[in-house]
């Protein structure tokens, strides 16, 4: 379980929250604190007060995969294959094992054709895919995705979701502005003004949002 208690950091205030294994989606208006919560869960930011524990350990003691919505911010290397290999190389994983892992994740994500390209040659969506591959290649305990889906086509989003589901990553926390994506998660959190105002399975949470633009259009159209 991921447990948050007495948490405060900048605008974030969370008294108590438990996140079970599975895919958790975070939605809410712009500026409500979604990315800040994700940064706390990934260990990029550390709480001013309170705690976050992932199966009893802090995020910084946990293997974390992080994908930023603006991938340029996190990309370190100029060649795609080097970028995907970076986490394994930093962990001193043997070269042949690293090469195999890079090829495997590239094949699973259908991006083998990008491996020899430079980052500069990639489209925005392709950069997101490379960032995702770099996060997944290390088999993290928690995968944190900050609106990764806003630069991907729907077919690719569904493929990636399936890959994440079968990858064995215990915890996935993603914020999204696609309500159809949020409706497919296991747990849905709604944030407003730094607080989690609603939490539960998507059907239950969205039932409270029927009168808002946050209600999935496919449910509104009963399709």
């Amino acid at each position, binding site marked *: 379980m991921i447990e948050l208690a007495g948490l405060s950091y900048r605008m974030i205030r969370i008294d108590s929250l438990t996140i079970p294994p599975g895919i958790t989606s975070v*939605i*809410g*208006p*712009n*500026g409500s604190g979604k*990315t800040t919560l994700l940064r706390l869960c990934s260990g990029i930011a550390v709480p001013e007060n309170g705690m976050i524990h992932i199966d009893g350990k802090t995020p910084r003691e946990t293997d974390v995969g992080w994908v930023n*919505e*603006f991938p*340029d911010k996190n990309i370190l290397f100029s060649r795609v294959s080097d970028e995907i290999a970076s986490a394994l190389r930093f962990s001193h994983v043997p070269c042949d094992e690293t090469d195999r892992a890079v090829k495997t994740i590239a094949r699973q994500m259908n991006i083998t054709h990008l491996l020899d*390209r430079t980052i500069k*040659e*990639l*489209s*925005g*969506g*392709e950069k*997101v*895919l490379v960032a995702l591959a770099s996060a997944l290649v290390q088999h993290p305990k928690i995968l944190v995705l*900050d*609106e990764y889906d*806003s*630069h*991907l*086509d*729907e*077919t*690719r989003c569904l493929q990636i979701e399936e890959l994440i589901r079968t990858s064995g990553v215990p915890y996935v926390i993603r914020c999204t*502005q*696609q*309500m*159809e994506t949020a409706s497919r998660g296991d747990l849905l959190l709604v944030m407003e003004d730094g607080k989690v105002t609603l939490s539960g399975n998507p059907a239950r949470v969205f039932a409270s949002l029927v009168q*808002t*633009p*946050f209600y*999935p*259009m*496919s449910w*509104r*159209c*009963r*399709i």
Partner: protein
Amino acid sequence: MRLQLNGARAFRGDWSLEAEGAFGEGIHLVSGNVGSGKSTLAQMLAGLLSPSHGTIGREGIRSSMISLQFPEYHVTGSTVAEECRSWGLDPVPVLSELNLMEKQDRAPLMLSRGELKRLHLACVLAKNYDLLLLDEPFSSLDAREKERICGLISQRTSGITVLFTHEQTTFPRVDYLWEIQQGMLIERGELPGALHDWTHAPVLIKRLMASGKNLKNISPLDLQEATCRT
């Protein structure tokens, strides 16, 4: 007013894009898979990228603007207020409308991503350009903001507007549909007829059409009206 592409081609290694056709006045939507060349096409239409082969002709277009996929690429001001001024705008009405007055002295890159995108789009949409190119305009925007921006785009009654997007459910009123497939720009035509040929249509729109719903257009209101009609 017209933007004419005559066999315009772009190359990058073994990847290429070829575009033929004319963009006239109205709202155009271009869809395609990740890496198909939407942003490349947007940059060619904006004149930021010269085609390796072919030509792009502009008739009657006196002003143009491109909104790039990542709003970070546009930032030139060191504060939010300066960023507004860099677009020739008075920050007070712009930031009041966006509820960002309290953050006017912050560095733009310290805003949340959604706030930065809202600021950027407010600056872009404050002026009426003959040619407006919007590359992923809805990314980072919350559901309420997407609807508001769609409303603003739909209100453009003159000029050429071209949207490049992966958005799944929230669209403005669209006049013409285009797709990029296997390195070629394909003109699907005018809505609603073009919807039947839309290969990259979002699942929701495909399902509505498969269930016999008669879509007049793809704005949220059109989707809901089609749902209510038997």
